[in-house]
């Protein structure tokens, strides 16, 4: 565990633990692809296009995990003022955004394959699209340089409200669309056999490790961004003091 905490020797965010995880992931994904495309048989109603499921469902889980971390992190920032959680929230939001994009793209293609349309305005799709927009808004706010404590508090309020807003939109659309059609269009129930089920759960495992790997790198990146900004701020303050003719506190006069 300590190897996770030690800064890497090289000029990069990689370290021994991430290299080990990375190698495991490459092997893991190779096996997943084999299972998803070769080992498992085609499904009864959907044929081969059901294989999107092995990508789509774990992606949804990772996206939700990211959102959860962002929410918890935002809460901790407001409650304890924790820098660690502030950085984690940002890293998690980035991962969540990437995987929400994957969910939307894969879901859209799967929709084309099974229903013939790329998009329907049902509760699940609409709230996923809203989640994407809300995450992009959060990331847009976090890109802005500003006084760290105040900015991280505002970003935390924003982050905390992401999931509640998605829930509000979800229910709005559910009640709205239920007048016109079934509330959520369900896919034809896939006939799942044992190997398919195993592949799905194995997919969760691989994507879970993938999430951890991305979070380790992401945390380090966000932390370094903080350092860079703090250093930049110190320089700016020193310059300002120099202009005013005041000797900086730590300097030898």
């Amino acid at each position, binding site marked *: 565990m300590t190897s996770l905490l030690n800064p890497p020797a090289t000029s990069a965010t990689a370290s021994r633990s991430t290299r080990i995880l990375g190698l495991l992931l490459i092997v893991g994904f190779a096996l997943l692809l084999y299972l998803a495309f070769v080992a498992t048989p085609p499904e009864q109603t959907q044929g081969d296009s059901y294989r999107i499921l092995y990508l789509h469902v774990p992606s949804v889980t990772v996206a939700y995990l990211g959102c959860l971390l962002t929410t918890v992190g935002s809460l901790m920032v*407001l409650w304890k003022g924790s820098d660690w959680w502030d950085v984690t929230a940002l890293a998690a939001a980035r991962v969540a955004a990437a995987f929400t994009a994957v969910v939307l793209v894969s879901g859209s293609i799967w929709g084309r394959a099974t229903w013939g349309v790329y998009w329907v305005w049902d509760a699940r799709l609409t709230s996923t699209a809203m989640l994407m927009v809300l995450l992009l*808004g959060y990331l*847009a*706010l976090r890109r*802005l340089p500003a006084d760290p404590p*105040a900015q991280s508090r*505002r970003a935390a309020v924003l982050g905390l409200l992401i999931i*509640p807003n998605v829930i509000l*939109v979800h229910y709005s659309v559910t*009640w709205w669309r239920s007048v016109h059609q079934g509330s959520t269009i369900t896919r034809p129930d896939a006939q799942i056999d044992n190997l398919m089920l195993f592949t799905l759960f194995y997919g969760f495992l691989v994507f879970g490790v993938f999430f951890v790997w991305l979070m380790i790198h992401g945390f380090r990146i966000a932390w370094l961004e903080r350092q860079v900004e703090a250093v930049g701020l110190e320089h700016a303050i020193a310059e300002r003091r120099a202009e005013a003719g005041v000797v900086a506190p730590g300097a030898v006069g």
Partner: protein
Amino acid sequence: MFRDAAIIAGKDLRLEARSRVVISQVAPFALLVLVLFAFALDPDSGALSRAASGLFWVAVLFSGVLAIQRSVAVEGADGNRDALRLTGLDPGGIFVGKAVAVALELLVLEVVLGAGVAILYNATEDGVNSPSSVGLLICAALLATAGIAAASSIYGAIAAGLRVRETLLPLLLLPVLAPVLIGATRAFEAALDGKAGEGWPWVAWLALFAIIYAAVGLATFGSLLEES
């Protein structure tokens, strides 16, 4: 807290009375949005009058964004925000005050827009034949406005003080207002179709939204106002 809210609301409304920004700029913008919709949708096809409720509320949302931008901007001028904090006013009171001011401005805009939609879109008001329908329209409008004002004030404070506020605030705020758009439009449609009964559940939904965001505002405004 309510006394502080009255002070803030009074200040914002007096400022508006003197500068008349909402009346002279936002209201014409709102009407302009209605006109643009008419250009986009063929008035003869009946699409305009069928979509009247939705277009009304979309115009309200866009105007609302302008109104909240204005509300935030008046605080940013000349170190107002520092002065605001130094006054020692209760943050919850400041939140309620700013939200009430925005809400009142929005209500004025809604009256203007309502007249505009009725006249320009030939929206059939036959359905508004019973007190229940009229009551539905009024309740829905009041609660939707309260929700919009509360949420706008919170997100306005989140984006306050940022140089990119003009572009960031709409991006942050409009997705949040989507449930209000859905609920208010459904309520108005029910009222205009004469099926008031279908609209009242949406009024309850709008009330829930307003309550949630009022609570969030009261809980978080203190944190949002802090500068360091």
